[in-house]
Every structure is written in structure tokens, then in C-alpha cells.
């Protein structure tokens, strides 16, 4: 691994530089603020880039051009949209529960923030590296649904309420599948720590090393994580042809932007988790004994590998969304409880057997 690409030198030198100048407490606080600011920046960039990407990708799927007016190829379109959303009047239903109505978007955003903090972007570039990393991500991403439920209830709108109910049932059940499909890989790694999982894929990604069960787990993860982010074809909580806009019908302006941003942030988070666990995180693609090929792959910085894999997964999710019709609520639950969960459980057993016999690479 190319030492040049290790971010721990950079972070380490920042730490040293600070320690020489200020007291240890201040170092902690300054570093916290730095990390916070960088994640906020990441969020803003993610939102702008992903919204633009979604619009362009959907346009090309639909034989359209997409945004073309603001900036070259419409690149500044999202920024214009952000400005428009910021300038919009925040409307609120008269009978709405004001406190909860205002709180809901923040709950969603905070949950996304907490989850994104644990992602390993590259070697040495990870804010929180718990030894229970996957469990932590599963835990905080389950908080997001509270925001949806609160938004739906406090809007005092029946459409919103139905959307919130659907979303609750959906996310609660699909969390199981996401966690179980990730556990299938954990069986092989023996650790929940995200950095360890990435390191364990230095000689090959789990999706290749884990044979068919890993591939099945990957497919299940793709389906279940799409459902967990409330995206089409599982967007029954929004379902604009049935519930107008579902849980965020009554939101406008900045608060709506928060929901919008959280959707894309969640999409990024689940893709990043999928990339980390199944596709080797920031690890480059290595093929057995092809020394020359491996050296070339090593030359590409890990951060590009990470974002490349994440973009691939995000593109897959967009492809799903712009191709398939929406499921009905009972079909959604049937899919989870009758198909994904049983297959997942059997898959884990098979994987455990593979691991026990040492049949994986």
C-alpha cells in the first residue's frame, strides 16, 4: 500500500501542530470543531452533487437532457435550487404541533450525521472507529425513522400521517434484512469494526471471496437498503401519486430541504456501508497474482476507490428508482418477511458453514 495515500500522517501532523501550540483540552475542542466542519462541508457537497447527479441520471434514463440552463450543463442548478429553498417562506399548518414539526427535520439530519461519522473514507480518514462499527451504524440509522414519524404526525395532515405509518412499518422491518445481510460478511471477518473489515479485504473483496452467499447477501443488502432509505421502488412513504408527498407534504423551504438532503445523505451512507463491507471500502481491486495489475490499481488513491464504489452503488439505486413501479405496502412487507428474511437466515447459516470449513478465499 502506497504510504503517500495514508491520511493518518496528515491527521497526525495536524494533531502535533495543534498540541505544540495549545493545551490538550483546547486540542480536543479544536479537533472536534474541525471534524464537525468537515462533515458539514461533506454534507453540503454531497447534497449538491447527488441532487445534480440524480437529475442528470434520471434525465438520461428518460431520454431527456435534464437541467441545462444554470451554468454549463446545468451544473449550478442545485445551487440555484438551494438558494430558492432558502428564500422560500416556511409555511406551517395552523393546527400543527409546532415543536415537533420543527424538530422532525433535525432528527433526520442528526441521525444521518451520526451515521456518516463512522464511515472509513480512506486509510486513516475515519472520525469514529468503534469496535462495534456496524452495530453503531445500524443503531443510529434506525433513529431517522423517528424524524419521519414525527413529521407525519405533527403536520396534522392525513396524507402525512398515512405516509408516516407506512414508513414506520417499512423501516422497522427492512432494518432486519440490512443488519442480517451485513452479518453474513461479519461471520467471515469476525469483527464489527469497519476499519478491520476493510483491512481484511486487502487481498480481495468479500463479494468475490465469499462465493455465492456473499453475492446473495449483497443483492439482499441492495434491495433492503434501498427500502431503508425510502427510495423508489420502495418510496411508499412519499408515494406522490397516492399521498401527494407523504410525510413531508406540509414542509416547505429550508425544512423541506433538510428532508431532501437527508434522503440523499442516507443514500450515500447505505452505499458507503455496502461498499465498505462487500466491495472492500477504499481497498483497490486486486486480482490474485497479477502483480503488474495490482500495482497499477494501488496507484489510484484509496479515496477514489471509495467514492467510485459508492457512486456505483448510488447509480444502482438510481437505476432501480427510475425503472421500477412502486410496491404496495403489503407487498413490501411480504417481500421482506416471506422472501428476504428467510433467504437471509439460510444464507447466514450457509456462510457460517463456509467459514467453518474455510472454503472462502
Amino acid at each position, binding site marked *: 500500500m502506497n504510504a503517500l495515500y495514508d491520511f493518518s500522517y496528515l491527521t497526525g501532523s495536524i494533531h502535533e501542530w495543534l498540541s505544540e501550540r495549545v493545551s490538550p483540552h483546547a486540542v480536543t475542542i479544536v479537533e472536534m470543531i474541525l471534524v464537525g466542519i468537515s462533515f458539514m462541508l461533506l454534507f453540503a457537497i454531497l447534497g449538491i452533487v447527488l441532487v445534480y447527479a440524480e437529475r442528470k441520471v434520471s434525465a438520461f434514463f428518460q431520454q431527456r437532457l435534464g437541467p441545462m440552463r444554470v451554468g454549463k450543463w446545468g451544473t449550478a442548478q442545485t445551487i440555484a435550487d438551494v438558494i430558492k429553498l432558502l428564500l422560500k417562506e416556511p409555511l406551517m399548518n395552523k393546527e400543527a404541533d409546532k415543536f415537533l414539526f420543527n424538530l422532525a427535520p433535525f432528527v433526520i439530519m442528526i441521525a444521518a450525521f451520526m451515521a456518516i461519522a463512522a464511515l472509513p473514507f480512506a486509510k486513516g480518514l475515519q472520525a469514529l472507529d468503534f469496535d462495534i462499527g456496524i452495530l453503531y451504524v445500524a443503531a443510529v440509522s434506525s433513529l431517522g425513522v423517528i424524524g419521519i414519524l414525527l413529521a407525519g404526525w405533527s403536520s396534522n395532515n392525513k396524507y402525512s400521517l398515512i405516509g408516516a405509518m407506512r414508513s414506520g412499518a417499512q423501516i422497522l422491518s427492512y432494518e432486519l434484512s440490512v443488519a442480517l445481510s451485513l452479518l453474513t460478511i461479519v461471520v467471515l471477518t469476525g469483527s464489527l469494526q469497519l476499519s478491520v473489515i476493510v483491512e481484511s479485504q486487502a487481498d480481495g473483496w468479500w463479494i468475490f471471496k465469499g462465493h455465492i452467499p456473499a453475492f446473495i447477501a449483497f443483492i439482499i443488502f441492495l434491495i433492503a437498503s434501498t427500502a431503508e432509505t425510502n427510495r423508489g421502488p420502495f418510496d411508499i412513504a412519499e408515494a*406522490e*401519486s397516492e399521498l401527494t408527498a407523504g410525510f413531508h407534504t406540509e414542509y416547505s423551504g429550508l425544512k423541506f430541504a433538510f428532508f431532501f438532503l437527508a434522503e440523499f445523505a442516507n443514500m450515500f451512507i447505505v452505499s458507503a456501508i455496502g461498499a465498505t463491507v462487500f466491495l472492500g471500502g477504499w481497498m483497490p481491486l486486486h486480482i490474485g497474482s497479477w502483480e503488474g495489475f495490482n500495482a497499477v490499481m494501488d496507484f489510484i488513491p484509496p479515496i477514489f476507490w471509495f467514492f467510485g464504489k459508492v457512486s456505483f452503488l448510488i447509480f444502482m439505486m438510481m437505476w432501480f428508482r*427510475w425503472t421500477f413501479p*412502486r410496491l*404496495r405496502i403489503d407487498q413490501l412487507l411480504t417481500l421482506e418477511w416471506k422472501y428476504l428474511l428467510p433467504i437471509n437466515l439460510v444464507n447466514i447459516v450457509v456462510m457460517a458453514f463456509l467459514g467453518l470449513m474455510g472454503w472462502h478465499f
Partner: protein
Amino acid sequence: MEEIITKELESQEYFINMGPQHPSTHGVLRLVLSLDGEIIRNVEPHIGYIHRSIEKMCEHDSYQQIVHLTDRMDYLSCHINNEAVCLAVEMGLQLEVPERVKVIRTIIGELTRLSSHQLWWGVMGMDLGAITTFLYGFRDREMITDIFEETCGARLTMNYNVPGGLMFDIHPNFQKRTKDFIAHFKKKLPEYDDLLSNNVIFRNRTIGIGKLSKEDAISYGVTGPSARASGFSCDVRKHYPYSAYDKVQFKEVLRSEGDCYARYECRIDEMWESLSIIEQLIDNIPEGPFKTPTKAVIKLPKGEWYQKVETARGEFGVYIISEGQKNPYRVKFRSPGFSNLSALNHMAKDSKIADLVAIMSTLDLVIPDIDR
């Protein structure tokens, strides 16, 4: 104990207003739903939000002027509506239109049916959450609207028929463009199957949903593809052929299931039938005048006339009572959308909100057609 539980947890029905502005009512239709959770107990359509009293307006207009009002009823089958009025007036005048007119009317009528079904297909996909189909449907429809624009001068409200024939002759490019379209669309129609018809999600969303038996279809007066999906053979083109429909070979598409998927399949198969009808006629347009001359002011003799045609939605009827004046005494339109809507409650009862959207889509309602 059981009683207490039942009593305490007795669910309450609640009402929700779906519309007048709602993405899936495709216009200003208001449905008052009584819901028990997600399950619909009752649907009550409230209509009249786009009522323009077209029938009353007809009483003040001359017979040529009535035609253009029908454009604005079922705007997706406007040419067929126009044709119905013209046929009724010609029946009253006992006017025989040239063969050329009959063939052109049939071709354009089938093109209208195709364009309507294409739009319906796109919207059906969008209602079920597949937004991409909407764009694909419109992409193919664009070629038909181009044909219309070149020949008739408008894309949506064509007003190409006049009593006695056509407003002008077909454009020289008409035949070539139509053939190009047929070749193009024959390639694209299988894509429709790939995207929706065979899709497992779509099939689950539509098969067995919104069942309508043949008896109910007849008693509610449902016509068109919606009724033929229930096995009710009601194709006016087959049973009471008008224009050139007696000269072409085509199958009446029938299904027996009566569910959403059957209605969907009916329309998809009708597109194939329409293509074949056009193919049979497009090279055989007889030469001749495009209009039988009429007087500038048409006066129908005293009497009553009823003419029905098959629009993309079902049986459209025109009933004219004349007192011998230049204006009709009374005009009544039997619009298919109105009768089809009346079966909605029967079909949607005890299904889910998402199913209601699918049922509405497969009924293919055009709200101005219902309200007139």
C-alpha cells in the same frame, strides 16, 4: 374481556379528500374516501369541477361549430369525438361522404386511439411509481402528434372533421410519416412489455385488483377496453361499424378476468390491433374529393339522431334533436368516462389506497369527458 378489547380497539373510519387537486386523479376530480387504516370502505366521486356546460353551448352553435366543442371533452380522443358529431349530422342530412373521407377518418381515428393509449400507458406507469414510462409513452406519442399537426394543423384539439368530410385534404407527407411511425412503434411496443407488462412488481400491483364482473360491467354501463377486459363484447367498431371499419380485418380484444391487469392487457393489445388497422388502410386510401359540399348553414330536418362511436375510452354517443333550425334543439353526449367512473366504488371497495390509484389508472379517466 374479548368484548372490551373489541370495543376499546374499535377502529374508526376517517375521510380523506383525494382531489380536486391530486396527482393521480389526472384533473379536477374529487374522491371522498372513507378509510379504515389503508383500506378503502367507500369511494364517493364528486364531479363538476370542470363542468363547462358543453351540451347547453351546443344549443346555440351551428352544426359546424359543435364539432370543435367535442375536442374539449375527451381531449385524448378528440378526433373520434369530432367524427361522432359529423356522422350524426351526416345521418340527419342523409349525406354520403366520399370513400376517401371514410378511410382517412378511420386512419386518423386509430392514430388517435394509439396516441391516447400511449399516454395512458405512460401515466399508468407513473401512477404506479415508474416515472420513466411516462416519458417513453410521450416520446412515442410525439410522432403521432406530429402527424396530426402536419395534416390537421393542431396537436391536441384538431377539429379536422367537418360535417360532410374533412376540413382539408391529408398532407402529402401523411402516408410516409404514418408508415415511419408504424415501423418505429412496432419496435418500441415490446419495450412497453419489458418495462411494465412483465415486471413482477407491476403484475403484483395489478393482477386480481379491482375486479369487475361482466354482469357488473353491463349494469354500470362500463364500455370500452375497461368492459372488454371483463368479457363484455361491446366494441362499436365491430358491432355497429361506421366509417371504414367494415372494410378492415381486426379482432375485438377480449379478456375475461376483469382485473386491472386484464384492462391493461386489453389496451396494449388494442394498440397492436390499431397498428394493423392502419397498416391495412394506409396504402389503400382511395382517390377522390375530401368533402361532400354542404350548405354554409346546415339545417337538419326535424327529428332525432343518435350516433355512437368507439373512442379510446369506450362508447361515445351523440344524440341530436333538431327542430329544423340551424341550431340543434338539444344535444346529449353519452361520454364513456362518466359511466366508467360510476363503477369505481364497486371496484375499489375494500382495496388499499395504492390499489385505488391502479384502478383509476386502468379506467383511464379523462375528467373533462366526465364533466363536459
